[in-house]
């Protein structure tokens, strides 16, 4: 799983039936310090609670397809949870 930030909402005009009820969000992947890293991607929102500005963690591929209920839908990135806080240990502690 990796961190990301929701940067927008995707409203499809037409999608396949399997994902017609799935919220789709535009997500910018982040590095561990919260800086943008890589290109934005569209994630299905398994929590159904994420919105623009929210930090989240997401999975790709087969794991993404398992995030939603009902599971095994044709998606390749999905939000698993919302991030309240990332607590990084201070580097002087021997890291």
């Amino acid at each position, binding site marked *: *799983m990796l961190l990301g930030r929701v940067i927008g909402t995707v409203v499809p005009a037409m999608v396949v039936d399997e994902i017609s009820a799935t919220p789709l969000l535009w997500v910018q992947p982040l*590095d561990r310090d919260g800086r943008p890293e890589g290109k934005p991607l569209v994630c299905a929102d398994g929590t159904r609670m994420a919105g623009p500005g929210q930090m989240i963690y997401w999975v790709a591929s087969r794991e993404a397809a398992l995030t939603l209920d009902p599971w095994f839908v044709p998606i390749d990135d999905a939000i698993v949870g919302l991030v309240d806080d990332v607590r990084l240990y201070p580097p002087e502690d021997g890291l």
Partner: protein
Amino acid sequence: MILGRVSGSVVSTIHHRIVDGHKLLVAERLDQAGRPTGGYVIALDAIGAGKGETVLILDEGNGARQILDDASAPVRSIVVGIVDAVEVEPN
């Protein structure tokens, strides 16, 4: 599997049910010399790893689902061991 070093944790109250009761760790990926490569992964903790420890991370979905005993778990990375030492043969 990959080697990582626990450098933090993620606090999450709203998440998929499979995350309930598990700690989410931020782990730095390590290179051959044990230095962070710059990459990271957020992994579920199955073993009780803590701050600064070098850990063995299973980074594959089917294995992770086997450990969680749940065929529908949307989890790929899971900490499955704490590493005492890594010996590298000198070239």
